[in-house]
């Protein structure tokens, strides 16, 4: 080990001291800066990823709807032919027609508004299959319904109970003088996606049954495509749209483009703010190292008298900045993991103290704080912190190395 590295380590962690105050405070300062930066980035990535996932699972990788209103707005006249054609496209993993609409759901004295979606129960790619909380997806048939957890709780129903659905089409029957009988379904499964908006309203029934209740005939409201390469959805949607001027192919990126852009912008702004926090932490390290170098002025003179060159003195103090940065970054990574692991408990405690309620559920519609670890964020934070802390060490080191030994020894 070079002598200056040995001495740098000893000056940072003096032997015989249980609590090397300077090193501990500096390393903690860097660690907190790094952790703050990474926690914010990882949670923001999580929000972005969760929203993208939600968009893809709700609307598919690509949503196909009518370009012009036909008999009724946004309906496809011959969805089955379209589905068959789209399934033949090499980029398409699956295609399934859907229809959706609001209905009144009732169970005894309890009622709620359901967002009913008619789906193909035989489609193996149905995203709902991944979120079944109780019961079985495959039991879904013309007499059964899958309810979101929140809606099921609102209606006080469990798997096996019966619910009634009243669609707007029943009002049309009443206008024609016919008795508006509700459609009765047995609950075969409970859906829990973690997205409050979905869980509090979703009611999934077979598309065939939806068409009956809503008097749709063979029509559907759209087709959901799952693509083999979802990331290329924009390019594939453009290609599939050729020859279908009466249809709109909306890739998932375009469905909520402004929203996704807002999340990306929010992440960039937060990175900028956290960057400033880390910069402030680094400046405080620089100032602490500066005072340490001044305090050691006479030692710098002695080292020069012993033959230490400018480069070695520069390395001695520069390395202390680098070591603080490296240890602080490592500790910051660990701290990030810890904070993110206990994120919901921490948020719960904050909510309990400030009485703000669960904003993650009420505002962002998530059951818990979403996460997405992006290695690039960790690399960027690590490199940036090491760079800044090393610079913070080198500036006072440059000052120390530039002095004459006689001056340095006179100062102390």
């Amino acid at each position, binding site marked *: *080990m070079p*002598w200056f590295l*040995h*001495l740098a380590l*000893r*000056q940072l962690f*003096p*032997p*015989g001291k249980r609590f090397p105050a300077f090193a501990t405070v500096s390393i903690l300062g860097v660690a907190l800066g790094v952790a703050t930066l990474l926690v914010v980035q990882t949670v923001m990535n999580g929000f972005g990823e969760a929203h993208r996932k939600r968009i893809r699972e709700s609307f598919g990788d690509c949503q196909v709807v009518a370009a012009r209103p036909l008999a009724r707005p946004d309906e496809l006249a011959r969805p089955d032919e379209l589905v068959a054609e789209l399934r033949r496209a090499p980029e398409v993993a699956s295609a399934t027609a859907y229809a959706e609409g609001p209905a009144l759901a009732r169970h005894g004295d309890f009622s709620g508004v359901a967002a009913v979606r008619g789906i193909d129960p035989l489609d193996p790619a149905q995203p709902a299959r991944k979120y079944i909380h109780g019961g079985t997806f495959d039991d879904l048939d013309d007499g059964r319904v899958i309810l979101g957890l929140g809606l099921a709780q609102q209606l006080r129903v469990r798997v096996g109970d019966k619910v009634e659905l009243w669609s707007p089409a029943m009002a049309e029957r009443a206008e024609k003088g016919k008795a508006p009988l509700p459609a009765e379904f047995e609950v075969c499964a409970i859906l829990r996606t973690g997205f409050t908006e979905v869980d509090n309203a979703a009611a999934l029934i077979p598309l065939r049954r939806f068409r009956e209740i809503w008097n749709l005939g063979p029509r559907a409201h759209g087709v959901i495509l799952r693509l083999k390469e979802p990331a290329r959805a924009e390019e594939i949607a453009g290609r599939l749209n050729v020859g279908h001027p009466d249809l709109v192919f909306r890739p998932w990126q375009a469905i909520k483009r402004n929203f996704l852009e807002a999340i990306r912008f929010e992440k960039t702004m937060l990175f900028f703010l956290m960057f400033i926090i880390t910069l402030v932490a680094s400046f405080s390290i620089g100032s602490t190292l500066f005072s340490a170098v001044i305090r050691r002025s*006479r*030692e710098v*003179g*002695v*080292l*020069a*008298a*012993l*033959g*230490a060159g400018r480069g*070695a003195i520069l390395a001695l103090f520069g390395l202390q900045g680098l070591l603080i940065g490296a240890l602080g970054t490592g500790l910051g990574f660990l701290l990030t993991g810890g904070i993110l692991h206990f994120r919901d408990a921490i948020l719960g405690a904050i909510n309990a103290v400030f009485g703000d309620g669960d904003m993650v559920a009420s505002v962002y519609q998530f059951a818990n704080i979403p996460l997405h670890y992006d290695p690039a964020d960790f690399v960027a934070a690590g490199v940036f912190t090491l760079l800044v802390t090393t610079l913070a060490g080198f500036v006072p080191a440059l000052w120390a190395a530039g002095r*004459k*030994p*006689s001056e340095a*020894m006179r100062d102390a």
Partner: protein
Amino acid sequence: MPEIVLQATGLAKAFAAPAGLLPVLTAVSLEVRAGESVSIRGSSGSGKTTLLQLLGGLDVPDAGEVRVACEGALVAPRRRLGRGVGFVFQNYQLMPELTALENVALAARIVGVPAAAATAAARELLGLVGLAARADHLPSRLSGGECQRVALARALVNRPAVLLADEPTGNLDERTAEEIMRLLLDVVAARGLALVLVTHSREFAERASRRLVLSGGVLSPA
């Protein structure tokens, strides 16, 4: 006649002061031969420490030049810091985070001696100054006299031709000062080194083979 190991010619040094330049050394010349000990006395502020720093290459004279013996040639000490000249300071100037052994070895490591050889040399020298048993102690756990012994060992570790000692007993009690001075002179004599000793003590100055006084920026025989 022994070879010249330190040669200073026409050294002048002035410092900036509010009233203008303050001359400290005006025309100092000095030659020291191997095995010779030279004491320099003078009042406070007479420029003794400045002279030692110029002789050791820690500062640059405004005029004149200094040469010290290093690896068989007389060279400017500034180019060979840590090799041709060994320093002993009044306040020991040990690294507080390093043990006695590491402090001595550090001086050798700085000039490029491999770690194992530096440690071996440091251990031998600590034995020479009577501190073998305290090699692993930090300076904070050593007495003033012991610290100065470590500093002496450090000054010797790179086998310099000249030892420059700036008030080496200034911080010590009478008995310890006597011990250190005896050790310093014994080591210098045993190794055939040249010694330039700056001291306020007339008694210690008398023990040198040549005695000088620095006054008015000029060196003269005591």
